[in-house]
Structure formats: structure tokens, C-alpha cells
């Protein structure tokens, strides 16, 4: 079940929340667990057992690690737990990729497993690992109550697409949450905004990208290739951040404070900054559990470069089982290292807009590699972007494309910057009565309009994909 479906919005959501708010105190977690398991089983009727297995296993390891006093035993159990998590993730997500690569490179003929990737496995595995590692480090206390721990792992708002909530962040709220109308109202707002981002922007932009990639790349003029890339980059952003908004919103309605996952990444002035603003919970996780334990930047420049490379290879392959994802990780590692070495100082001297253009350029090329699974096809698309395919700068169709999606592009560009947010801030803090009054009226009007508009698009149902399904 995806948030942007009629079934979720008009069946699951109302029924779940009615039960949830009717349930007294501790019963709320029971309802939340049952609801989440139903939600997950709806999309993955078999793999729901897998998520329960992971939950049970890491619950047990957390307890065992805490109760053991000897360091050696603690480490043993920690390694055990990490291995199990990685094996499960590795098997279900990467087995076919590895077999296929092996077959191709060595000429072997191992059969493929052809198992579908369990939805959300990349997210909940990381969450579970954060819990066990933090137990080992003594940063958090092992959860005694299985129900609370199961709620942490399976909670439906962030189950499919993050944000990755570290256990330490959710710990307190797992057992005590005060219902708070201000937080619920904030949650509703975030949910509707996220829904609108996904349905009104990401889906439409995705249609453009589909139209562009439906053509033969050898015949793509430069203008269309760039329109396509712009649409793709915006689509991925609105899709991903829209889902994060919806998750944070639903979390707030349930009484949780989930961490933010995006902070207007496309206004970044360097690739380093971009990665501080994009999928922040993932980069945060990798920093805390991979980069810093490996020595981070404390062991000299050479070590740091190696560490960056490793982290970004992991980040790349985490996004999907394919060579293009690895390449995508390397692409960013390359620019990050370059920035570390000298580029960053150079960029600081240039005006911010130039840095921003450079960042967008690097990111755009990254998205092409990311979105086109066959690397050779990706290269053909890139050559179209630079006019190397000989199809010219523009064609009649490119102007039509531009006109057809112009309004969407303008809205998307603005929505990808903090402009709307700043205007709202300004108005809500304005000292004149008019400012506040307009803000209140708009606040009341815009959300229902966005909601109704999104519903119309969902019911029409022409194009409603779920990117990142492979995560």
C-alpha cells in the first residue's frame, strides 16, 4: 500500500486513526503494531515474516549484548547480529546481482533466485543495526518491551521510504507519547504537503521523463535531453522528500518526532553541501556507523579519501543492486574528494550561484547514471545531453515539450527552493494584522486545495509510480 493510493487514504488511514485515538494509553502501541503489520503484509504478504524475524533477532541481540558484562562476548554478539542483518539484506537484495555479475565475468551459469526485493528492507535493516550498535556502545538501553521494539521497527509511516530513525531518537516516544493537537495539526499539514509533492509534482515530472526516455536516445536533441534530466532530478527530489514529509506528518499525528530528511538540496553551492541536505538520515547513519568508526578524517588525508570512497560505494549500492548505482556512488565520491582536496577553497572564492550551477550539473549527470540501469544506455543519454549524437540543439518537439511543462517546471523550481517557506515564515511573523490575517486565510485555503487536487490526480490514476521500490 502506498500513501498516494485511494485504498490507503480512504480505507486504511481513517480506520486506523479511529482505532488509534480510541485506544487507551499502552493499547495505542498494540494498535500501531497491528496496523503496521497489516500495512506491510498488504504489500508483502510473505515478507512480513522476514521483518518479524529481523525484529525478533535484533530484540534478542540487544538484550543479550546488554546483559553480558564481558567485552569479548558483547563484541561477539554484536558481530553476530550485524552479520545476520547484512546476510538477510544481502541475500534478498543483492543475491541476483552478484550471481549475474559472477556469471557474466567468469562465464559461470549459476541460476538466479529471482526473488522480489522486500519493500523497505534497506530502511528497517539500517534502523535495527543502529539499535544493536548503540546497545553495544552503551548509548541506549536495550528495549525490554518487545511490543515497543516491534513498533519501532515496523512503524508504517517510515517503513517504505524512510527517514531512517535512529533508535536513540525514538526511544522515549516509544513508550510515552502525549497527544498534542498542535503537533497533530503540524502532522496533517506535513502529510498534505508531502502528498501534493508526490502526486502533483513528482508524478507529472515523471511523465515527462518517461516521454523523453521513450524516444531513441540517438535522436534526442540537446534541449529535450536537458529538459528530461531537469524533470528527472526534480521528480526524484519531490518523490523522495514528499514521502519523507508524509512520514514525518503521520509520525507527528502518532506523537513521534521523526528527523528531517531533506533540506532544499538543490540550492547547495557544492557537492559536499548537497549531501548535507539530501537524504540526511542516510548520510547521518553512514557517518555515524561507517565513516567515523573507520577513522573519519582523523587518520590523515589518504585514509580520509579511502573512507569517503568506501562510504559512497556503500551509499551507491544501498540505493539498488546494479552497477549503475555503484558508478553513481563513485561519481559523487570523486567530486567529494576533489572538493576536499582543493575545489572547495576555489568554490568559496566564486559567487554562490556559480557553485550552485556546478553542483546542479554534477548532480544532474549523477541522476542519469542513477535512473538508467544499463550503463551503455546511460552513456548514450549523456552524449545526447552534450549534442554528441548529432541530433542538433533543438527540434520542433522540444519547444512543445518546453511549453507543455513550462508551468509545472516553474512551480517545481520554486518549490525546490525555500521561497514558499520563507514567504510563509515572513507572513506568520509579521507584525501587522494584515500579514497574519492573510497567512491564516491562505493557510486554511491552501491545504484543502492541495488535498482535493491530489485526490483528483489519484482518482484519475493515470501515472502513479513508486520510485525507490528497490530500496
Amino acid at each position: 500500500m502506498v500513501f498516494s493510493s485511494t485504498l490507503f487514504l480512504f480505507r486504511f488511514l481513517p480506520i486506523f486513526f479511529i482505532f488509534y485515538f480510541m485506544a487507551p494509553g499502552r493499547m495505542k502501541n498494540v494498535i500501531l503494531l497491528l496496523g503496521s503489520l497489516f500495512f506491510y503484509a498488504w504489500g508483502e504478504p510473505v515478507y512480513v515474516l522476514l521483518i518479524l524475524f529481523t525484529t525478533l533477532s535484533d530484540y534478542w541481540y540487544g538484550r543479550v549484548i546488554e546483559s553480558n558484562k564481558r567485552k569479548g562476548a558483547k563484541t561477539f554478539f554484536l558481530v553476530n547480529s550485524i552479520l545476520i542483518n547484512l546476510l538477510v539484506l544481502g541475500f534478498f537484495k543483492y543475491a541476483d546481482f552478484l550471481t549475474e555479475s559472477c556469471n557474466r565475468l567468469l562465464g559461470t551459469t549459476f541460476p538466479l533466485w529471482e526473488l522480489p526485493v522486500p519493500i523497505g528492507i534497506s530502511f528497517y535493516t539500517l534502523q535495527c543495526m543502529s539499535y544493536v550498535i548503540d546497545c553495544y556502545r552503551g548509548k541506549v538501553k536495550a528495549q525490554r518491551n518487545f511490543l515497543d521494539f516491534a513498533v519501532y521497527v515496523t512503524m508504517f509511516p517510515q517503513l517504505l521510504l524512510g527517514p531512517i530513525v535512529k533508535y536513540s531518537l525514538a526511544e522515549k516516544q516509544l513508550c510515552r507519547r502525549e497527544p498534542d493537537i498542535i503537533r497533530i495539526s503540524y502532522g496533517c499539514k506535513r502529510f498534505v504537503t508531502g502528498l501534493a509533492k508526490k502526486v502533483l509534482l513528482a508524478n507529472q515530472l515523471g511523465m515527462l521523463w518517461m516521454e523523453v526516455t521513450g524516444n531513441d536516445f540517438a535522436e534526442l536533441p540537446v534541449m529535450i535531453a536537458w529538459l528530461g534530466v531537469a524533470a528527472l532530478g526534480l521528480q526524484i527530489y519531490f518523490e523522495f522528500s514528499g514521502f519523507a514529509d508524509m512520514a514525518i506528518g503521520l509520525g507527528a499525528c502518532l506523537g513521534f518526532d521523526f528527523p528531517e530528511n531533506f533540506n532544499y538540496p538543490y540550492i547547495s553551492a557544492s557537492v559536499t553541501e548537497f549531501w548535507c541536505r539530501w537524504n540526511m538520515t542516510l548520510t547521518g547513519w553512514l557517518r555515524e556507523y561507517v565513516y567515523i568508526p573507520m577513522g573519519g578524517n582523523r587518520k590523515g588525508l589518504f585514509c580520509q579519501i579511502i573512507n569517503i570512497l568506501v562510504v559512497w560505494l556503500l551509499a551507491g549500492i544501498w540505493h539498488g543492486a546494479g552497477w549503475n548505482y555503484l558508478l553513481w556512488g563513485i561519481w559523487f565520491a570523486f567530486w567529494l574528494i576533489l572538493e576536499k582536496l582543493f575545489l572547495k577553497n576555489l568554490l568559496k572564492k566564486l559567487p554562490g550561484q556559480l557553485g550552485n550551477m556546478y553542483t546542479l550539473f554534477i548532480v544532474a549527470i549523477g541522476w542519469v547514471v542513477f535512473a538508467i540501469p544499463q550503463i551503455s544506455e546511460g552513456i548514450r543519454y549523456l552524449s545526447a545531453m552534450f549534442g554528441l549524437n548529432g541530433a542538433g540543439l533543438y527540434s520542433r518537439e522540444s519547444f512543445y515539450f518546453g511549453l507543455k511543462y513550462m508551468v509545472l517546471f516553474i512551480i517545481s523550481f520554486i518549490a525546490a527552493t525555500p521561497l514558499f517557506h520563507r514567504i510563509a515564515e515572513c507572513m506568520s511573523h509579521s507584525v501587522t494584522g494584515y500579514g497574519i490575517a492573510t497567512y491564516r486565510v491562505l493557510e486554511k485555503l491552501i491545504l484543502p486545495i492541495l488535498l482535493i487536487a491530489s485526490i483528483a490526480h489519484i482518482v484519475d490514476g493515470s501515472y502513479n509510480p513508486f520510485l525507490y521500490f528497490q530500496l
Partner: protein
Amino acid sequence: MDIYGEKKNAVRTVTFLCTIMLVLTIADLFYRVVDFREEGKGSFMTAPKMTEESLISGSFMKDCEENVTNRFVNRENWITLKTYMDVAMLKKEINGVYLGKDRYLLEKHTRAEFSSEKVEKTLESMQQLIKEYPDTRFMPIPTKDCVLSEKLPAFAPYFDQRLLIEQMKNVLGNEHVIDVYPVLKAHEQEKIYFYTDSRWTGLGAYYGYTEFAKAYKLPAFNYLKQEPLKVTEEFKGNLYSEVNLPLKGEDILMFPRTLEKKYTITYDGNKTSHSFYAPDCLTGENKYDYFMDGTHALTIIERESFSQEELFVIKNSYGNCLIPFLARHYKRVYVVDLSCFDGSLINLMKECDTTGQMDVLVVYDCVDFVEHFSIR
């Protein structure tokens, strides 16, 4: 703002949004119950069946989702609302239909949709037919976006079918192709295509007929001499339902001189009529069925005549408004629509061909021809 005010404001926001969601949920559920009671075979009956197998494979869940979306309360209105939003975003294209200038809706076609293999395959089929019947002539009708390219939205891509027609001439031979593009293009200011339908009007078909007459060296009869009759103003064609906008209906014109002779028309061997036109259809949904009573596998048109000339027409629905113009030149006209004809076309043609000199005409629009034509 003080805490109290903020709380009040929050309550309002939550109430407002939750009301929308709840009202829609209840309305949707209620609508299903009513639907069920009234029709007896409503949504509950068409709801997907839950079995162990469908649960494990997940197909049950998928069906449920589709069921809820496809039968959502007031679905039509939601879709219209979405279309309005598209129009507000200055989109000139909805569901593959252009919102063109001067009321015209035009179906979008691009060359990329048709691979050269596809074109070659259909032309091969045509060559076979010509081999069997050397008198065969093919009238490929260019689609609306090609002829009325002036009416397209700015820079909109379209399928220029002139090259395709040239290719047909080269492959099949000039004498086998009746090229109607020039005559249609010359009259593009007149209403040769419907506004809300992808097909040509009676007037467009008349210009096609003049080319037909030239090709068969027949004296073209002037059907325009008598003013055409408006039989309805409420025609809403096949593109109308695609775009889902409240557009005005349009006229269907009938040329009275087509009915000067006395004909006997037999549809599928069981229904007879003396007119090419079916006025009953004008009250129904598909008003285009006014011409030739809609689609029939085999239609036979006979007329008292001294001549023994026979014509065999293989057509798609474009042919429906052309047939009335052709019939006066023949004693007998056989009309086959391959979309609902089951059986051997060549055998049927041999059965029909009593004189051994039957004329054969194939009438298709270029797009449908490339897509579907085959003599099996």
C-alpha cells in the same frame, strides 16, 4: 500568538482536513452500498475474491486497490477536475489528445509509434491482396493532425503521413494508391474533419470520393448541388470522451442526393434497410453510427441497375461516411469491416465475385492501417 490561539487554530486545521477525508470515505462507502442495493451487482459483487492463492501472490491486494480507485465516488467529476487543472497548467494535451485551435481536438500520433517493420508488414499484406485482385485500389486517409496541422497547438509534434503515402505508392505501385492528401489539404479551411471526433466528416469523405472517381475514371456525381441536411447538433465524438471537458456538441451533415436511388442494404445477412443512415442512432451514445448503422462485419448494398459493376470495400470506420457516395456507381457493393470480420477474406471475395471483374477498394486511415491491417 498565545498558546490558546495557536491551539484553536490547530483544532481548526485538523478538523477541516479530517472532515474532508472522513466525508469522502463515508460517501465512498455509502455510494457502494447504494450501488449494491440498486443494481444488485454493484461493487460488492465485483469486489475481488479472496483466496489463499491471491492473498499470497498479492493479486488480491492489487485488485482491491484498482477496485477502490476505479469505482471511487464521483469518479467522473474527479477526472474532470484533474483535466481542468491540466488546462490551467497550460497543458494542450490530455490523454494523447491535443486541445487544438478553433474547437478542434486532434489525436496525437508520432512517427516513432510505427516501426518500419510494422509498415512493411502491412504493406506486404496489401501486396498479397493486389496479387489476388489486380484491380485493388487503396485509399490511405491521412489523420487529422497531418491535414489540419495548422490547428495543432504551437510546436506540437505530429505524424506527417506524406512520406508514408509516398512509400505506399512506391511499394504498391502508383495506380493502386488513391492519394487524398492533396485534395483534403486544399480544403483544410472547410469542415472536413469533426471537431470532437478523429474521423473525417461527410464533406471530407465527399472530397475523398472525387479522387476515387478520378482513379476509377467514373464521372464524379455532384452531391454538393443540394444543400446538406443537419441531422443532429449534439454529436460528441470519440475524442470528446478522452478529454472529459464539457465541450459543445457539433453537427452531423447528411447529403440528400445520396438517397436519390433506391437501395436495399443488408447488414450481416439479417437486417435490411433502404437507407445508408440510421436515424435511431442519433439519440444514442454513438451518433457516428448514423452512417451505415455503425460497424458490421459484412454489409451488402444492392440497387436496380442495368450495369453489372460490383465493388468490394474493405474499410475501417472512416469508410462509413464514404460508402453512401460510392454506391450509385455500382449494382452491388460489398462492405467488409475487418475489425469484426471472422473468416477468410479472400474466400469471401471469391464468393462475391460473380463477374470476375469486381473492383476492390481498401479505405483506412494511415494510422489504423499500419496498426491493424492484415488479410490474415
